[in-house]
Every structure is written in C-alpha cells, then in structure tokens.
C-alpha cells in the first residue's frame, strides 16, 4: 500500500525562512542600519579619530568640518569620537536589557501562562509594576541604586519585564490549548518537556519581535536617564550625556545635541524596522498550512 510513497514537492520550509527574511524590505533595511551601528560601535576605539575624553581648549565649539566631522563641544572634545564610544555603551546597555528582560519575562510569563493557579498572583504583581510609567520607574530605581552602567541596566530591565511577561504569557496561553500539547501529555511527557519542547518553541515569535522593541526603548530610556543625570556618571560619553552637555548651547552649537540625536534615530529606526520585518515574516507564516 505504497500510496504515500511520493511526497509532494517540499513546500516553503526552514531553509527558505532566511530567504523570506531577506526578501522583506523592512527587515533588510533595519538590519543594515543596525549592522552599521554595531560595526561602528565595535570598532569605536580603532576608528575614532580622537580621544573622546580629552578636551582641546583651542578647538572648542567648532562647527562640523573636515577635521571634526561632527564638530566639537564646549570642552573641545570631538563629538564624532564621543558618539562612536557612546554607541558602544548604548548598544551594551540595550543588549543586556533585552537579554535580561527576555530571560525574566519568559520565566515569569511562561509560569503564569502554564500553571493556572500561579497566574493570578503573578499577573497582579506585574500589574503593580506596570502601573508606573516605565521611565519614571527607571528613574526611581536608578536614583536609588546609584549612577552606573550596571544600575541603568537593572533599572531599565525591571521597567521592561512586566510587559514582556504579559506578552509571553498570552502566547503561552494560546499554545497551551493546541492539540499537539495534549498529544504530548497523552504520550506521558512531563511539564518540563512540554514547556520547553512544545510550548516555548512555538510561543517565541512575539517575544523575538518584542525584544527588538525593548532594545530600542532601552537606548532611548538610557538617553533620558543620562540626560536627567541618573545615568552612567560623567565623563562616560553616553548619548544622553552628550545631549545634556549640549543643552546649554543649542543655539550656539546645535551639532552637539544633533549628532547624538541622529545616532539615536538611526539605531532606534533600524531596530524598529528590523522588528517589523521579523514580525511580518514570522507571524502569519507560522500558522500557514500549505494544503
């Protein structure tokens, strides 16, 4: 009875997932922008023309020129070099916040979504945190903990975890009802296997998209924190710090604030486009049936 001996031609599968991603314009543009920022940040020490921390009093408040592509600030420091190093710090913070938020969000959200009895207490706790606007929360935590890169990471993560946990929970609750989960239970699988192999594997798509958003917001929020003065201490050249420095000179030397602002724009835009592209490729296709 070899009636199923001939399989249909392989329908779009894993291998062409990459192809679909690359065909998505939003994703490729976003990835290009983000890639550019990452490369520049990684090579900051190598390609920065000047020391970001050393001032040159004879070159103060210079407009952008061939020597100083983004001009200099009131201490004579080269803005381009500061921005390049600032990018490194911002990316560091963004990445760490994303990872920590993802890890904590998955643990909390999956627990709440899978173990029904824990759902109530956990989500009420998350709701309590979400009652605060995230930036206020981040400012409060940062002020309490003190100014440093690590504390900024902690503060921003705590601010981002509740919403991420909620998203993971929603996704887990949908997948939990799928018949293949019931099938795994029928086979005798325990909770751990079901959660890891079946539920999380299929609930990840919204999380991945969310992570690009968290990354972008972390960069923005870090800038706010530094601007206010509760971010990493000076003379660290974070985007927010550079903008804060330039606040008093907006009319006289607008490039001091515009340059890091532009860097933030490129990073955040790139991340958003990348996330949108990922979402478009991931979500509807995941549920598609080729028959």
């Amino acid at each position, binding site marked *: 009875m070899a009636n*199923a001996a001939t399989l249909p031609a392989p329908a779009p599968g894993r291998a062409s997932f990459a192809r679909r991603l690359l065909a998505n314009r939003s994703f490729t543009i976003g990835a290009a922008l983000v890639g550019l920022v990452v490369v520049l940040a990684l090579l900051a020490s190598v390609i920065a023309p000047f020391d970001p921390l050393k001032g040159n009093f004879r070159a103060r408040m210079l407009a952008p020129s061939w020597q100083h592509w983004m001009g200099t600030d009131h201490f004579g420091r080269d803005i381009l070099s500061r921005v390049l190093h600032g990018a490194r710090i911002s990316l560091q913070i963004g990445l760490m916040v994303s990872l920590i938020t993802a890890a904590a969000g998955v643990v909390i959200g999956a627990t709440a979504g899978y173990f029904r009895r824990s759902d109530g207490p956990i989500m009420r706790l998350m709701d309590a945190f979400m009652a605060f606007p995230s930036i206020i929360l981040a400012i409060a935590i940062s002020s309490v903990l003190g100014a440093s890169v690590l504390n900024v990471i902690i503060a921003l993560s705590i601010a981002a975890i509740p919403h991420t946990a909620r998203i993971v929970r929603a996704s887990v609750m949908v997948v939990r009802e799928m018949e*293949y989960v019931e*099938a795994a239970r029928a086979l*005798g699988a325990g909770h751990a296997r079901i959660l890891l192999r079946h539920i999380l*594997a299929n609930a990840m798509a919204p999380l991945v998209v969310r992570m690009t958003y968290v990354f972008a917001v972390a960069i923005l929020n870090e800038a706010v924190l530094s601007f206010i003065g509760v971010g990493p201490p000076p003379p660290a050249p974070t985007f927010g710090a550079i903008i804060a420095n330039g606040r008093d000179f907006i009319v006289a030397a607008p490039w001091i604030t515009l340059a890091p602002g532009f860097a933030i724009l490129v990073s955040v835009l790139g991340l958003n486009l990348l996330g949108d592209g990922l979402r478009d490729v991931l979500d509807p296709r995941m549920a598609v049936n080729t028959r």
Partner: protein
Amino acid sequence: MGTLQPLIEARGLHKHFERPRHFLAKAVPALRAVDGVDLSIAPGETLGLVGESGCGKSTTGRLLLRLIEPTGGTILHHGEDITRLDAAGMRSKRRAMQIVFQDPYGSLNPRMQVGDIITEPLVIHGVGDSASRAARVQHLLDLVSLPSSALQRYPHEFSGGQRQRIGIARALALEPEFIVADEAVSALDVSVQAQVINLLRELQRDLKLTYLFISHNLAVVRNISDRVAVMYLGRIVEVAPADTLFARPRHPYTQALLAALPADHPAQRRSATSAQGDLAKPDATGAGCRFANRCPHVRPTCLTHDPLLHAATPGHQVACLRVADGSLSP
C-alpha cells in the same frame, strides 16, 4: 475470543465542568458533559462511539485516558482502577493506551521534524538507545506507508492524510494495546478517509489492537466497528453489535439519527425527518429522559423518570422506558 475480562471498562463515569461566573451573578449549573457513562471494550474489538456535537463522546475518549480528569466514576484497565493512579503510575499506563486526534494540522508540533515527533514517546519513556529507536521509527514509518525521507521534514510539508499517518505512527511507538481514535478521519477528504480507515483496520489485525472509534459519521463507524454505542447529551442511549444497531435500532434517537442520514443513491431520497427541534443544552436536564423533548414516542412518564441502560436482547442495551417495558416494539 480471548479472555472474558474487558480490556477497558468505565463505570459511572462523570465529567462536570464548572462554569466560570462573576461572583455577583447567580450560580450557573455545571456543564454535565459526561453524565454517568458505563462502557466496556473487549480485547481486540473496535467499539464505535457515535453522537452529534455536544453529546460528550470526545470527552469520554479523553476521560478514558485521563487526559481530562473525571469528576466521578471509575476506569478499569485489565481490572485495575486507573483513576487512583498517581502521576508516575499513570505515566507508565500511558504506554498501553494512546490516542489519535482529529485535527491533522493541530496535533503535530509544527516546529518538530517528523522523525523527532515519532521518536519522542520513546525518549520520554527511556525506551532503547538511539540506534534501536531509529530502527523502531523506521519500522513505524513502514507500518503507516510513509517514506524514510519524511523523517527530516516538517509537518506542514505533508497533506492531511499523511499527517494523520504520522499521528498514527506516533501513537503506535510505545506498542500500546488500546487506541482512542477521536474523529481520526473526520477532517479528511472521502478518498483519503478510505485510505486511513483501511490502514487502521490493517494495523488492528496485524498488531492486535483494541480501538475506541469516536465519530459523528455513521457510515464510517459502520464500516470499522464491531459494536457501536450511541451517545446523547452525556449518556449512552444504546449499545449493540454493529449489524444489529444499524439493522434494528431500538432507541428513538438512534432511529432518528439513521433516518436523518442522506441517501446513498438518488433513488433512495428521504421524504420526512423524524427528529424535530434542536439539541437541548447538556445542562438543561430536568428529571426525565433527555430525549423527551424531541422524541416522537414520548409519554408522561418519560418526563419524570430517567431511563437506564437495559438489555432489550442479549448484547443489545437501550436506555428507553418504553423499550424496557415493551411498549415500543422494534
């Protein structure tokens, strides 16, 4: 054939679902999806379980495997009460009792390769080493007539009928003796259905399997079942050997079901239907027979007395007051 003891038995099986309600609202009666079901399945037999939507047949199938926990009653496997087993005990029982689901699209993890899907039960129960598992999986593929190239592929690359074969292979991995087929062919096209029905029959013959075949499609049930049980609103209303049930149905609901079937041939078109009205909701049961509001033979006692299954003839049980007292002739 074989031992007298049934392989699977259910006694007084209940499943009531509490309905969520706002704490200020009036209490809503529970949904009595399965409301006192007795059945027994002999080794090697196929018991067909039929009924319309909401009758509780799928719930019954899942209760037998304790995929849903019963709210009352006992389930016996080789005489052993499995409702009392703890998680570990139930886990080892699962090797003997498996299920094939209705939805060929939803019952396979879209992110697992077919090879992993079929190997998973062996991994969960620590059966064999990777070499012997691979051999077993290959053997299972042969049993369901799928090529080995299927192993590295993902479910979405297959048709509905092929996915059902994958699901069947998975169910067979642990060498179970009992399989619940929950509408296993209902989502398939007619020509594919025939393939899978033949396959199930072949597997039963070769592997000495026992089936509970749940379906709303009477013709399919007729084709594959030895005995058939008819469910209505959480209760079994008639049980009989397949030949007898379809030739001489005694319960008015069974009669209505068979009368409502579309014709096989244009020359056999029906003229009237006998079951009027819609299904009552499974909780809106008063004291009497659940079918009373739609039954063409209803009498006053039917509204106050709830009929139990009673042997009208040996091997043929009917839950109807009028059949029991002989006032409803076949």
